[in-house]
């Protein structure tokens, strides 16, 4: 009997073989205007996307709006998804992250943002990640990979991805030159790629 482990829409057959990109298959059907496939994709990925958006934006009602924008964009531009260039899951989550960050930038003057600014966020960002990832296998993998980074690299990547901060904001927050922050991000991301075995 073929036992499958489902990780975010990617079926990993336990008896080996290449993982099946279920989200990607749904996306191809969505590109053809298949509304049932769209509903399936939403059910599969919306909790993760919403968690990510909430993480970046904090504000719940704005996060709901952004989630809606994300899936509208998925519906409208699914034809741009190229299965040979990556998994459907990454494609959707990349859109979710970009839209969340766009919203943070456009709402930069808001009080939310002011509350979130400040050094305490750095600690919270990583500690938060560390406790949350206990919940899932794949999350644990990310946490372990993050743990292999140097503290400054992890700080830069965490603030950028989970905090939605720009490179210049991070430079100001941690008191390092902008060029240094850029280098930390590049080196940190390369390291993560190696640790998590990302192949493209």
């Amino acid at each position, binding site marked *: 009997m073929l036992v499958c482990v489902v990780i975010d829409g990617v079926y990993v057959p336990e008896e080996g073989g290449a993982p099946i990109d279920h989200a990607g298959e749904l996306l191809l059907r969505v590109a053809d205007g298949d509304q049932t496939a*769209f509903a399936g994709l939403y059910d599969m990925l919306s909790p993760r996307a919403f968690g990510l958006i909430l993480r970046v934006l904090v504000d719940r009602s704005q996060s709901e709006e952004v989630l809606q924008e994300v899936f509208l964009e998925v*519906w*409208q531009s699914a034809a*741009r998804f190229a299965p040979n*260039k990556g998994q459907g899951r990454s494609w959707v989550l*990349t859109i979710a*992250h970009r839209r969340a960050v766009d919203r943070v930038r456009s709402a930069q003057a808001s009080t939310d943002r002011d509350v979130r600014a400040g050094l305490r966020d750095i600690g919270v960002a990583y500690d938060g990640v560390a406790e*949350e990832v206990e919940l899932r296998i794949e999350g644990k993998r990310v946490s372990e990979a993050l743990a292999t980074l140097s503290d400054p690299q992890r700080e830069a990547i965490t603030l950028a991805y989970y905090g939605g901060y*720009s490179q210049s904001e991070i430079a100001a927050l941690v008191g390092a030159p902008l060029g240094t922050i850029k280098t930390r991000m*590049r080196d940190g991301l390369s390291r993560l790629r190696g640790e998590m075995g990302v192949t493209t």
Partner: protein
Amino acid sequence: MNEQDFAELAAGHALGSLSPEDTEAFETARRQHPEWEHHVTADAATAALLADAVVDVTPPPGVRAALLAQIAASASSGAQSAPEAALIEQPLPLRSDRRAPDSEQEHGKARRWGPRFWFALAASLALLVGVGWGSVFVSQQLNTPASVIALDQIEAADDAQSATAMLPDGGEVTAHWSESVGKAVLVSDGLPAIADDESFELWFVRGDAAISAGTFAAEDGSATVLLAGAMEPGDVIAVTVEPAGGSPTGQPTSDPIVAITTA
């Protein structure tokens, strides 16, 4: 730019943390060096894995219901039946009667036809056509507010320029323009709250004359607006608060809340 610099930009891009200037440099270099695209792909895939470290949160059922209603409405190409919630990415309303005569171009028309029309049309296009690049590009364009398309065009132009002015209470207004593109876009943050029966109105101040460039509304103090009409070198771009729909006299009735010199 060498490949090292590009790799740095690609990492910042994947993490969503580039400044607008760096984003522009990144996109330009990306077009010029398709052989470096592997950096972009690899970094994007790595960054997306970071989402695994976030707790799943089930969104309220209303979002799902609204989305399914929206796509169903758009798929049946019912141009007038799309629910109100479908108008998430609507272009800002610009009043056609306040438009300068030379602004009757594609974007002007697109705006007056309204977002529901474009939403429905784009969705029908997506259904009708295959996966051809051109059609995808078109449908993408139709779904993007004209101001954002214009901003992309401006930022891609060699003669792109920008100038920023601060509002007294901390807001920020930046004008982006390009002579070769012939468009100007205003990106505002932290605009003051105005009454329901008021609008912001844009002006090109040219010498002693003020020429209306359309009205707009802000969402939480933010707005990205394409100025209607042609900008001329040396124009000052000003924003005033006017009665809803724009100044009834066609001339500003109040002092500008912000003025940006483009010379």
